[in-house]
C-alpha cells in the first residue's frame, strides 16, 4: 500500500495544533520521562540525542544505580557479577543534557500536565512518558506479601532481591529443596523463570548435586518449553520437577515463617523459596488513571495512552498486544514513542512504527537459546507478523554462538539505554 504524505505526516499535523500555545510562550517543549529502565532511559536518550536541544528532557528515576533485570539470572548462575549489570545515569546527564532527577514520581495531574514527586517538587510536561515496569498483585500467592520478600525473595526487580536469592541458594543444606512459585500470565520476561531455574540448577549441580528444584506453575505451558526441558534433561537430569496446573500447580500457598510451600494441599518444607507473584503495571499508571484492569492500554502506532494523548506508556506496564514484556520490547517501543513525540513537538518526520524483540536464555555453560519476532501496528494492537525460535537438538557450537550473541546484545542495549 502507499501512504500519502498528508496521512503519513498525521502526527506532525497534531504537533502544529498542540504546539501553538507553546510557541506563544516561546518555551522549549518539555518531555518528562518516569522510569529509567529499558523503556524510559532509551526514550530519554533518543529524544535528547535526535532533537539536538529542541526538546527539554527530564528523566525521573529513584535509583542512582540501576541493575538490569535482564542478565540478573546470569548473576545468580555465577556468569556475571553484580557490577556488570549495574549502570548509572551520569552519561545521560553529562553528554546528552538530560535533567536526571533521583526521586519517586507519586502522581500525575493530567489536567495541569504536572508530575508530582515524593520529595515535594512538581515537574510540568508537554508530553509525559511513563515506563515504570511492574508491580505485584497483592494476594496472588496466598501467604506472601512484600513483608515476606526477605525470607522468600521475588528477585523480579534486580538488585538486592537478586543478591538475596543467590545467597539463599548458596546457603541451602546438602540435598535441600529449592521451590519456585512461577507467575501466571502475563508477566515480565516470559522465559525468565525457567532461565532462572536453569541457573539455580547450574549452581546446585556444582556445589549441592543432591538438591532438588520444584517449580509450582499455574500455567499449562511456557516459552521455549521444549528447549528448557531438553536442556534440563541433558544437564540437570533428575534435579528439576515442574508441577503444572494438571497436578495442582495453580493452587499454591506459602508460609514464610516456617519456609513451607503448599501445592494442592501437600506441604513441602523448603530451604530456599523464590515467589514470583502475579504482576500489574507500575503503580503510577493506576495512580494516574491510565489502567484498564491491571495494565495500561496504548495506541499501537505511537504508544500513546488510550486515555490521554499527551502521555506515552512503554514496556512491561502496557497492554499493547502481542509483544512479550521484556527489556528488548521496551527499548523497541521507546524508539517508536520517541519518534512520535519528536514529530508532535518539533515537526520532525515520522516513519511507520516497527517493533522487534528477541529473548536469549542461558540453560547451562555455553548452551544459549533464543526466540525472536517482528511486530507491526494494527488498529487494534501491536501484532506479531514473523518470528523464529531455536531448535531442539542444535549443535553445541551453535548454542555457544547464541550465548556469545546474547553477551553482545547486552553490551548493545545497555549502550543504547545509558549512552
Amino acid at each position: 500500500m502507499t501512504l500519502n504524505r498528508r496521512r503519513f505526516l498525521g502526527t506532525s499535523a497534531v504537533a502544529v495544533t498542540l504546539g501553538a500555545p507553546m510557541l506563544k510562550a516561546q518555551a522549549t517543549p518539555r518531555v518528562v520521562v518516569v522510569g529509567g529502565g529499558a523503556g524510559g532511559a532509551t526514550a530519554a536518550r533518543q529524544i535528547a540525542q535526535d532533537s539536538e536541544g529542541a526538546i527539554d528532557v527530564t528523566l525521573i528515576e529513584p535509583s542512582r544505580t540501576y541493575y538490569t533485570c535482564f542478565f540478573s539470572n546470569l548473576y545468580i548462575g555465577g556468569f556475571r557479577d553484580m557490577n556488570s549489570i549495574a549502570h548509572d545515569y551520569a552519561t545521560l546527564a553529562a553528554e546528552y543534557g538530560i535533567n536526571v532527577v533521583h526521586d519517586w514520581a507519586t502522581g500525575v495531574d493530567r489536567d495541569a500536565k504536572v508530575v508530582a514527586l515524593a520529595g515535594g517538587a512538581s515537574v510540568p510536561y508537554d508530553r509525559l512518558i511513563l515506563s515504570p515496569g511492574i508491580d505485584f498483585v497483592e494476594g496472588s500467592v496466598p501467604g506472601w506479601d512484600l513483608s515476606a520478600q526477605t525470607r522468600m525473595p521475588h528477585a523480579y526487580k534486580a538488585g538486592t532481591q537478586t543478591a538475596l536469592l543467590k545467597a539463599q541458594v548458596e546457603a541451602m543444606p546438602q540435598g535441600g529443596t529449592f521451590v519456585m512459585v512461577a507467575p501466571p500470565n502475563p508477566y515480565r520476561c516470559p522465559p525468565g523463570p525457567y532461565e532462572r531455574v536453569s541457573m539455580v540448577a547450574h549452581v546446585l549441580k556444582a556445589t549441592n548435586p543432591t538438591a532438588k528444584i520444584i517449580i509450582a506453575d499455574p500455567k499449562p505451558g511456557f516459552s521455549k518449553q521444549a528447549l528448557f526441558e531438553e536442556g534440563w534433561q541433558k544437564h540437570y537430569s533428575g534435579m528439576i520437577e515442574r508441577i503444572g496446573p494438571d497436578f495442582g500447580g495453580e493452587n499454591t500457598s506459602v508460609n514464610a515463617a516456617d519456609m513451607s510451600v503448599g501445592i494442592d494441599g501437600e506441604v513441602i518444607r523448603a530451604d530456599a523459596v523464590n515467589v514470583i507473584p502475579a504482576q500489574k503495571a507500575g503503580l503510577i499508571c493506576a495512580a494516574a488513571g491510565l489502567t484498564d484492569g491491571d495494565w495500561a492500554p496504548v495506541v499501537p502506532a505511537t504508544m500513546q495512552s488510550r486515555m490521554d494523548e499527551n502521555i506515552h506508556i512503554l514496556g512491561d506496564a502496557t497492554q499493547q498486544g502481542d509483544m512479550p514484556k521484556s527489556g528488548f520490547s521496551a527499548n523497541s517501543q521507546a524508539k517508536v514513542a520517541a519518534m512520535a513525540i519528536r514529530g508532535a513537538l518539533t515537526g520532525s518526520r515520522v516513519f511507520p512504527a516497527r517493533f522487534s524483540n528477541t529473548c536469549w536464555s542461558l540453560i547451562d555453560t555455553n548452551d544459549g537459546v533464543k526466540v525472536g519476532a517482528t511486530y507491526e501496528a494494527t488498529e487494534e494492537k501491536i501484532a506479531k507478523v514473523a518470528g523464529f525460535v531455536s531448535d531442539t537438538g542444535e549443535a553445541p557450537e551453535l548454542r555457544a554462538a547464541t550465548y556469545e550473541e546474547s553477551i553482545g546484545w547486552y553490551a548493545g542495549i545497555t549502550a543504547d539505554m545509558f549512552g
Partner: protein
Amino acid sequence: MRRLVLAALLAWAPLPGARADQVAVPLGDAEAGAEIFRQCRACHHVGEGAQNRIGPHLNGLFGRPAAGLPDFDYSDSMERAGADGLVWDLEHLHAYIENPRSLVSQTRMVFPGIADATQRSDFLAFLRRYSDDPANIPEAAPTALAVEIVLPPEVLGLEGDAEYGAYLAAECLTCHQADGGNDGIPSITGWPDEDFVVAMHAYRQKLRPHPLMQMMAARLSDEEIAALAAYFGDL
C-alpha cells in the same frame, strides 16, 4: 483486497496522530469466522474445555504438528503427514481448508473445503484466537499479516535517505553497537556500502543462515537497505 482492508482500518482512528503508521492487517474477520465455524461444530470443538469429538479439538492448533494430539485416533494418511513434518501454520491450514485432500490424501475429514480465500482467512482468524498468545509465548504463531509499504518519494526522500536510515538503524543498535564494539555481535559500522547491501540481501534471501538476521532483513525494502548502508557506512 488487503489495500481495501487497510484503508478501512485507517478511516476510524480513535486518536489524532494514531493512524498513520499501521502496516499490518489482522489475519481476517474473526467474528465472521465464528459464523463459518458453525458448520464444523458437529465434529470439532474449540474453546475452554473443548474435547476431541469425531474430529480432534482445535485448541492450540497453530503450531501443532499434524496428528499431534496423543489421545486422538488419526487416519494413517494424517499420521504420515505428521511423520513427514507437516506442522499446522497459517499457510498449510489455508491449503488444507481449501481442499483437504490436496494436502492429506486420505484424511477422514469429510469436508469439501472453502473455496473463498476471504472466508478461509476469516475462519482461520477465528481459530487463531484459541492458540497460544505471543505476548506470553513469544514463539506462538503470528496474529497479523505484514503489509508491504511503498513509501512515496516525498516521504522517503532520495535513495539512501540518512534520516530514515537513522530511524531504521535504531532497531539495529539494540544489538550492534554504534561505536563499532564487537563482543559477541559483529560490528556493522564503516563498511563499504556495497558489502553492506549484498550482505543484507543475502539475509533477506535466506542465503546467509542466521535466523534473527533473516527475520530482520525480511521486512527491509531495497531502499531501506540502501538507507541503512549509508547510515552505518558513515558512522
